[in-house]
């Protein structure tokens, strides 16, 4: 049983560019959340998707957007990249009715130069 898988694992972008990160949830999970983890910090909630809609959003600007597909996989898009967007982006999935029990992927490490 595959866990949460994310791609790419590492990527480097320059300021002003756009990036798309991808996530496949754990089998049987239908809810996907995205978190940003800066170096030496705890993860920060970006948003959560359920039934292809954004349910809740943390304190992140509109440059951060997402999408969930019918197969429950998800994408995180970040536009107009800033140096401060450099971080580990974590995807987490959870099963129906247990949205607090998050299973995290290994993350996508984004470096903005």
């Amino acid at each position, binding site marked *: 049983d595959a866990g*949460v898988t994310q791609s790419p694992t590492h990527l480097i972008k320059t300021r002003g560019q756009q990036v798309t990160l991808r996530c496949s949830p754990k089998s049987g999970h239908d809810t996907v*959340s995205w978190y940003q983890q800066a170096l030496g910090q705890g993860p920060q909630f970006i948003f*959560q998707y359920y039934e292809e809609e954004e349910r*809740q959003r943390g304190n992140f600007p509109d440059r951060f957007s997402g999408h969930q597909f019918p197969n429950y996989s998800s994408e995180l898009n970040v536009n107009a990249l800033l140096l401060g967007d450099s971080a580990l982006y*974590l995807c987490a999935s*959870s099963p129906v009715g*247990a949205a607090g*029990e998050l299973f*995290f992927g290994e993350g996508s490490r984004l470096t903005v130069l």
Partner: protein
Amino acid sequence: QQQVKQSPQSLIVQKGGIPIINCAYENTAFDYFPWYQQFPGKGPALLIAIRPDVSEKKEGRFTISFNKSAKQFSLHIMDSQPGDSATYFCAARMSGGGADGLTFGKGTHLIIQP
């Protein structure tokens, strides 16, 4: 504004000792308090979680103590092993079904010396 304060930032314990990591929160609307373990290069993994209606929960060598009146909770690791060396995060979630994300502490870097 940090809503979950975690301490200490780092901790070194001898093998077999009992490291204790503490967290405090302000928002009484939090109703779910998990602890996550993260190894370098990996995503956080759920260790153990507690709800405010119990004061203690034990799973294997890991124990959460919860003090609702003080708005504090802590993680104890019994018989600690070098393999427990990792970063530990406490977290909290608002009541209401889980749509809100988890609010994490800043983490504790734990080293268990052989």
